[in-house]
């Protein structure tokens, strides 16, 4: 009974958060839909995404048993889109988490330790952020090889500066707050102030940034695949599908539009969620969309 009422109140709070926050509701709904698609992807695939059938090459959208058509090898596009969704979202989320942990750690350390560690971390962050990341990613992947893991690691280790910068700025401003001062005066240790008072205060901002960053990582991941160095050739990823489609622009425009629109949907969903979270947690968010 208590559990039920607690859940009810949580649901009520959630719905209150959504009221008047179109971005949060729309983004959340889209993300939930995408998560469902990822979880049930194996069940929803009508065909093996890698199975080619040369008799069914380049079937148009609406073909029998291939509702989104087939590609140049007769592979089912809907199944390949689903496989690509799993690949891209897991890669984007993993890379974002790596960036988040490195960035939050360095940002908090810089805020907590004035003097040379702070100078060093800030300098490191500023220089990495000023460098074209894709160039480094291309060079590194060329050496360490293609595939899901090399790509996730490369993107994750290149993407942390934005998190570090924001964590540092937020943590520094939180340290000026009176509740932190009062905790310090009561003799709470520096470590537990940092983890118990500062880190939770930074979380809402980081949450919104995580959503935006997932979108950026997904774009970076498909761009690398599109360039032919992210996913192994022929793997069912959206970047590969876009790259392969270029030889069939005239005969099969759906080969471009299916993965292209898929990327747009996921990126828009993540951006909506990010905007909604920003508005939810901060008074001074971006101007409402509608």
């Amino acid at each position, binding site marked *: 009974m208590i559990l039920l009422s607690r859940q009810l109140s949580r649901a009520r709070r959630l719905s209150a958060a959504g009221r008047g926050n179109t971005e949060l509701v729309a983004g959340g709904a889209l993300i939930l839909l995408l998560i469902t698609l990822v979880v049930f992807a194996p069940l929803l695939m009508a065909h093996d995404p890698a199975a080619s059938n040369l008799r069914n090459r380049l079937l148009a959208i609406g073909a029998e048993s291939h509702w989104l058509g087939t590609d140049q090898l007769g592979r089912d596009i809907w199944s390949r889109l689903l496989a690509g969704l799993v690949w891209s979202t897991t890669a984007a989320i993993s890379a974002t988490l790596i960036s988040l942990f490195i960035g939050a750690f360095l940002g908090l350390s810089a805020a907590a330790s004035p003097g040379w560690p702070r100078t060093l971390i800030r300098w490191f962050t500023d220089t990495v952020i000023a*460098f074209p990341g*894709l160039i*480094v990613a291309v060079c590194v992947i*060329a*050496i360490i090889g293609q595939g899901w893991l090399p790509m996730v690691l490369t993107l994750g280790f290149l993407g942390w500066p934005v998190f570090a910068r924001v964590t540092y700025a937020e943590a520094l401003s939180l340290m000026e707050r009176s509740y932190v001062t009062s905790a310090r005066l009561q003799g709470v240790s520096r470590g537990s102030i940092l983890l118990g008072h500062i880190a939770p205060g930074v979380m809402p901002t980081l949450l919104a940034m995580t959503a935006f960053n997932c979108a950026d990582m997904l774009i970076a991941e498909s761009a690398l695949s599109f360039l032919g160095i992210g996913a192994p050739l022929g793997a069912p990823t959206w970047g590969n599908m876009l790259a392969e489609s270029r030889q069939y622009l005239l005969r099969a*425009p759906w080969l471009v539009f299916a993965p292209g629109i898929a990327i747009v949907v996921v990126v828009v969903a993540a*951006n909506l969620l990010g905007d909604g979270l920003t508005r939810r947690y901060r008074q001074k968010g971006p101007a409402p*969309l509608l």
Partner: protein
Amino acid sequence: MKGDRRYRLSPLAVAGLRKLLEFLALLGALLTLLFFLLRVTGDPALVLAGADATEEQIAAIEAQYGLDKPLIVQYLNYLSALIRFDFGTSLESGRPALDVVLEALPVTLQLTIMAMAVTIAVCLPLGAWMGIYQNRASRRVASLLVFLAQGVPGFVAGLFMIQLLSVQLGWLPSIGRGGVETWILPTLTLASFLIPKLTRVISTRVSETLGKDYVRTALAYGASPRAVLWRHALPNALLGAVALIGSQFAYLVSGSVIVETMFAWPGLGWQLMQSTRTLDFPLVQALAVFIAILVFAVNNLTDLSFRFLDPRLRDSGVRR
């Protein structure tokens, strides 16, 4: 410290020197990373010689690059060669890597400058308009469209434009670099990397500026809204916005790798993709160094020019 007047540098010079040192440190770190990654992940002689090299070729490469020496000696040799701008020869073409880079540089410069011009021409008026008319219905539609456009990655936008403008309508060539008609699609594609984001930033900046005290004061003194807008609010808002475009140059260079590869433009990015695909490491290193120098130069030139345009920044230290 005794301050001897003659040896005291201006704050600008100090900031510039500091930036240069930081840049050299970053470049050194990047090249060190590439050096050790190349050696950790496999036999560089095999990589340098190519997949189908014979035993003698591998031995020749080992001798040529000093790969039989200890690692630390190799590393120092490598760094000293780079400092002398000696990048070696391209393994694919046999030409000096520096020549290949200098040939590709104008192509990339042309593409990024054209894209930058288009971005400014679209973002400034659109962003200013959206910032001024906060509550119009047409502005709300525009900002929804900008939000959706922000969800379209540049290369996807480029593919959609190729499909529409060159395949369906047949107006523009879909690949290659030649006359003016071949410039349009690559420029638009690269511009689409930045336009939605910058439009949003500029519109927020303009609307923020319009809420500033000095705007309210000017209006209270009876200045016409039009005069306040053109004389005070827009110059202030747009100055910062243009500085922001300069800081996005690194992102634009990343985008140019994709755009050049898409449209087969033989610029730095296209060369980089070609040389990584063929594992032409001398060329990869030369390209990485030059791209880094290019980004550094542009970032700091825009920084410097805004120091002179904006009196508030003059004589200030490093701008963060």
